[in-house]
């Protein structure tokens, strides 16, 4: 039972759950961004593992999907970091729970 595919699938599961844990417990924008990167990398590692062990590598669709995932994750990191900078400039702290512009005031 202990072969490479099993180990790699468990690794991607653990990375995904670490990402969920970080997203649910952290309020710092950069930590949440790091958690999202963990989620994305877990999904990409899962795709490559399944493509390698369960399907033939002749169809390279999995690798191309992971390339697209990497490109979009880089774009997401860029816009997330600019939001991080804007938060720090507007509120002084890069925490997401201080953002209340979109919240109703309860009047």
């Amino acid at each position: 039972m202990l072969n490479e595919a099993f180990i790699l699938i468990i690794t991607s599961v653990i990375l995904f759950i670490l990402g969920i844990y970080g997203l649910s417990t952290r309020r710092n924008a950069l930590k949440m961004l790091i958690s999202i990167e963990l989620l994305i990398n877990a999904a990409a590692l899962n795709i490559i593992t399944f493509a390698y062990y369960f399907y033939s590598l002749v169809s390279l669709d999995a690798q191309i999907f992971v390339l697209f995932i990497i490109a979009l994750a880089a774009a997401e990191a860029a816009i997330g970091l600019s939001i991080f900078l804007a938060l720090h400039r507007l509120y002084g702290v890069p925490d997401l729970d201080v953002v209340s512009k979109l919240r109703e005031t309860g009047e």
Partner: protein
Amino acid sequence: MELGLIIGLSVIVGLVALTILSGILAIESGEMMHAVFFLGVLLVIIGELYILLGAEFVGVVQILVYAGGVTVLMLFTLLFIPRTKERLEKPFMRIPSLITVILLLSIILMSIGYVSPRAAVPEIGYENIVEILRNIAELLVVDYKPLIGIVALVIFIVMIASAYISSVKRE
């Protein structure tokens, strides 16, 4: 079990242990600079796993774009702001999250136990890598051409949005 298989399995187990350890440190590290450093370590190791899994091109792109570009972008962003420690959550928020995560992990691991991966690993020689790269390029240019256009449009919009958001000033 042959010696080569044992060495290969040990390398993968070592890389996987480093991946999980650096992931935990990236989430739990209180200093932001250390968290970004451990994220970079994790991204490099995942790139090496891609290379071991026969996806050499994806592994190189992962190391160049992800571990190089995104990590350095995060480090430069951290250099723009004054150095602050992370404000940690209240403990009662962390314990339910930890319990939920442990439950989720055990459910997923139990469900994985019923799947038995068959190791139908194709043999890949170095002479096939050029062929694989050519096939990737053909697929990207021919079959996935509309998707590349969409991704390029998304990245263009992201550039404009990043410039706009970065120019927001305090009222």
